[in-house]
């Protein structure tokens, strides 16, 4: 049985029922890493939020999302709260808004432990510091005692990673986890993510508009466009022999390092005329 099984997921918003996700199906086995690629508005983040049960009340959800055998769609808040952090956790794009600015980082990581395992604060601190160390933060004691604004962007994102991993969830959802970071810090955080996922054996749903970033972390990829999956496959196949014209366009635009400086770059429009306009 797969860890995550999404069947014909449809999400629309508000009274006008604006459709964000239009019948998406995929599954994810334990330990597998799946990248979801698409532009802003393609429905990739809404899909992730549906898996976390984090969609707002005015969202209409149809279809099925089964996580570890239990149905998420229609599950009440207390049922969702038990899953979140324990079975599934999420790393968001902007670490400054995902952390509470008034609380020391160590306490925030410990809170996840306390909520799900009722850990006492003494032993919890030991585990928090071990976890901060594991995600590659030098001087984890100091990081634990710092407030979020005293850390750099890369340190904050690794603290969030520690928070997402400390309960050893089966699935970690990463939504553009490195988009707000410098390239050097991004490389560091991606390498760390790769390492900690390997160590914990957790599955990962990795959302990004950047194919190069996805290819660093994932084995499987799906491409979303206008709320639908237009292509899926292994990273190897999809990036070397993309089939859908939109995917071909995405692969061509992502290879800035292969372009001749100053020459016209290929755009998605050269390959696929129906792309939403950017």
């Amino acid at each position, binding site marked *: 049985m797969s860890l995550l099984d999404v069947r014909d997921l449809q999400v629309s918003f508000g009274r006008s029922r604006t459709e964000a996700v239009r019948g998406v199906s995929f599954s994810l086995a334990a330990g597998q890493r799946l990248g979801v690629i698409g532009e*802003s*508005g393609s429905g990739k983040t809404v899909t992730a939020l549906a898996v976390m049960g984090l969609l707002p009340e005015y969202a209409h959800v149809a279809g099925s999302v089964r996580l570890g055998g239990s149905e998420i769609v229609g599950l009440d808040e207390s049922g969702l709260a038990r899953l979140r952090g324990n079975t599934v956790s999420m790393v968001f794009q902007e670490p400054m808004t995902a952390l509470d600015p008034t609380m020391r980082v160590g306490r925030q990581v410990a809170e996840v432990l306390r909520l799900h395992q009722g850990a006492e604060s003494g032993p919890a601190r030991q585990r928090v510091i071990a976890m901060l160390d594991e995600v590659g933060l030098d001087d984890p004691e100091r990081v634990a005692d710092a407030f979020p604004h005293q850390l750099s962007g890369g340190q904050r994102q690794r603290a969030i990673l520690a928070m997402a991993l400390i309960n050893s969830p089966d699935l970690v959802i990463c939504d553009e986890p490195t988009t707000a970071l410098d390239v050097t810090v991004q490389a560091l955080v991606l390498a760390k993510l790769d390492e900690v996922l390997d160590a914990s054996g957790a599955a990962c749903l990795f959302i990004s508009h950047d194919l*190069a*970033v996805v290819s660093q972390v994932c084995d499987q990829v799906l491409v979303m466009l206008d709320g639908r999956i237009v292509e899926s496959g292994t990273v190897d196949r999809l990036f070397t022999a993309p089939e859908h014209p939109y995917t071909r366009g995405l692969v061509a635009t992502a*290879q*800035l390092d292969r372009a001749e400086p100053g020459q016209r770059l290929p755009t998605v429009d050269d390959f696929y005329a129906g792309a939403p306009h*950017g």
Partner: protein
Amino acid sequence: MAEPRADHLYRAEGLTRRYRNGGRDVLALDAVDLSLDRGHRLGIVGESGSGKSTLVRLLAGLDHPSAGRVWFEGTEITDLPEKRLGFLRASVQMVFQDPRSSLNPRMRVSDIITEPLRSRLVRRQLTDRVDQQRRLAEVLAAVDLPADAGGRYPHEFSGGQRQRIAIARALAPDPEVLIADEPVSALDVSVRAQVLNLLTDLVAARGLTLIVVSHDLMVVRHLCDQLAVMRQGRIIERGATSSVYADPQTGYTRALLEAVPRIRAEGR
């Protein structure tokens, strides 16, 4: 010290900027020397906090240095008061990273784009009276936005289109220098290529001098013929873009180059 020759478009000597942050002195820019000739495209790369944005803010006259001097077209702008900076405001325009925050959400696109033309300081520098409507139509066409875009508001546009609006605003006073601070880093990869193509075309068609700040070396490699690598408030490497890429002289530049994410299709 000799006065700079007039053929340098920009010249800076010993440019230094200190900030006070939480009772601590932060040296954002540490005695930077720089010269840039007309028609070149200079890329400034480095990590967050390396001083690259501070440097271009000083070049654009948006901030004053703690020490050092800056000349633009042979005129020292270091400590000029705002009312005497009109010539700089008309000649040097900026495009910022995030068009969500650099465009006023309550203004129509037409008012946003023509705003620089209504500035009294800039207006005095323009040789002819500018027909605002004609200039608006011209710059909208230059950035490939529909002619009716002027009547709409920024939120009605996508991220890439908003960055085109910001570029159109920068072009409105017909500047000589365009300074772009991370112009594509808030954009989707798929939109990035379109905006980079647009910048390349505009620079060539209008003979602009371009200064691009970015943490992404591939963006700078594509747009710029000259490169300055910054670290901890200093320029640590400077040269032709192609030679710095082919043969980086510092470990830091090499690290920046290696960090650029590339598609890894051979499998993990």
